[in-house]
């Protein structure tokens, strides 16, 4: 098992990703939830209830900010190599395809997690919520879990779809993670959002034992089960992405 491969890819990608454009994007991802929360507090005369703020912060940071970052950084796992004409150099090495998927995934989640943690660290105190420390660690944990699972899913989409991977990823995020995850039916259990919401409601004590309709949105499973499912998703999706990349067959410009 070559561990240096993914580390090498991650090191190279990190070194070349510190550009003004990328840093500006990171600031936007981290600052966007803070701006909205600050705006709400500025415009609202009364402090909104903690439950509402908790859900808004969860949605803005985990479901929007991190996912947007991952969309930009994890999805082009293959297309960026093909566009940079470096793909052939990578796949002609023994563990090239595996290293590329894992290394790029690592970089994508590092950027997304750092933006998410930064956003949480500023937005939670700015929200004026009554239990900021509790919400902070819960959101940070969900940022990590969400980045892992969403990052793996978007990496898989990037590996499956060479052209227009971003479009397919947006469709997935809007229709599967956006709409299906909030449909009160069994199908929503397959989404990452369902598991994350289940963890949030459990750890923040937002569950109403007598409300069946809400239960359909985040289930009754315990946190250990949900965490295991999310980590399982991550591993499975990454394995599928590696398998797909290993199969090759991507179109490059230089085949004659």
């Amino acid at each position, binding site marked *: 098992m070559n561990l240096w491969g993914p580390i*090498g890819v991650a090191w190279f990608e990190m070194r*070349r990703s510190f550009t003004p454009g990328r840093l500006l994007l990171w600031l936007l991802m981290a600052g966007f939830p803070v701006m909205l929360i600050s705006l709400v507090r500025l415009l609202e005369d009364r402090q909104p209830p903690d439950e509402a703020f908790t859900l808004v912060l969860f949605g803005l940071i985990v479901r929007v900010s991190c996912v947007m970052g991952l969309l930009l950084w994890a999805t082009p796992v293959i297309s960026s190599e093909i566009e940079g004409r470096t793909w052939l150099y990578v796949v002609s090495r023994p563990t*090239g395809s595996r290293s590329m998927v894992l290394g790029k995934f690592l970089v994508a989640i590092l950027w997304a997690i750092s933006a998410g943690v930064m956003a949480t660290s500023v937005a939670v105190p700015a929200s004026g919520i009554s239990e900021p420390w509790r919400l902070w660690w819960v959101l940070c944990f969900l940022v990590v879990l969400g980045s892992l699972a969403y990052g793996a899913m978007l990496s898989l989409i990037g590996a499956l779809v060479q052209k227009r991977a971003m479009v397919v990823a947006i469709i997935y995020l809007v229709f599967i993670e956006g709409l299906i995850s909030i449909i009160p039916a069994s199908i929503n259990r397959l989404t990452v959002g369902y598991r994350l919401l289940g963890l949030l409601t459990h750890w923040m004590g937002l569950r109403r034992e007598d409300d069946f309709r809400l239960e359909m949105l985040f289930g009754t499973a315990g946190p250990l089960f949900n965490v295991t499912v999310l980590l399982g998703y991550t591993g499975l999706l990454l394995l599928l992405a590696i398998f797909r990349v290993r199969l090759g067959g991507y179109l490059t410009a230089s085949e004659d």
Partner: protein
Amino acid sequence: MELSETGERVPVIELCGLTRLYGTVIGVNDLNLKLDPGCYGLVGPNGAGKTTLIGLLTGSLFPSRGEARIFGANPIQHRSLLSRVGVCPASELLIPRASARDWLVELLMIGGYSFRESHDMAAEALVLTGMKDRMDSPIGSYSLGMRQRVKLAQAIAHDPELLILDEPFNGLDPVGRFEMTELLKEWSSRGKTLILASHVLPEVEAVTDAFILIYGGRLLATGSAHELRAMVNDLPQEITLYGPDVEKLAGRMAEQPWVDSVRLSDDRNRLRIEARLADQLAHHVTCWVAEDNLRIDRMVGADGELASLFEVLTRRHRGYAR
């Protein structure tokens, strides 16, 4: 040289009915070949299938039929074999912000070397290819020739046993071509195997005398220039004579049984001859010119030039020649 379990010599490269199709388009078609260690020129025009063959050899493309083997095994099933191979694809690098050294370190780490080892090996390879002073500058600031050197450096950095270079002379100035030629000669003199793919014959001839000719995805011929000449000696070859007295040769030519056609230009200054037995043709032309004291300024074509051999083989492949 490696030996199989039965004590037989294992070819460095072995192609068994290797075929790759892109839909209905043929990339390479039914290639059969065994290569022992050595330096080979993989020669063919653009679109001949050179890059596809390289992709199949390095496991980055899957064959539609048949099999490619390197060091006795299939590189798709035995990926670890690729650590013994260095590949320099023809495609241009489009990673302008990265430095050459960083890129090589990444590729070496993908190859399984530690960070420190990769740093040292990358620097060594870049020094060897003449990039010592610019290895930490962004690739975007390099000239085309410098990018070619960087591509070569990544291929040789891990000291592979088999080096496959696809159009390595592209973009190099004359000095760069000379340096590249010397580097490749020195590299192959160490008993390693070099496959040098190019569509420019003189570039390949400067490095090696062994050729693999490929056209339309098919293998036209393999061997040294001498062997190839012998192979096509009885095939019609074309030579063109220039000079004020070429008209006087036309009559003599037309009488020879091994001459297929004779064409004289309108200005009677150029004579095009198509003949079999090219060695006899050259011999007779020389004799007649001396006997009749003719003035012939120039003779171009089937005088043993590899270019004309390739042309003849290509024509035979197309069915234009017997």
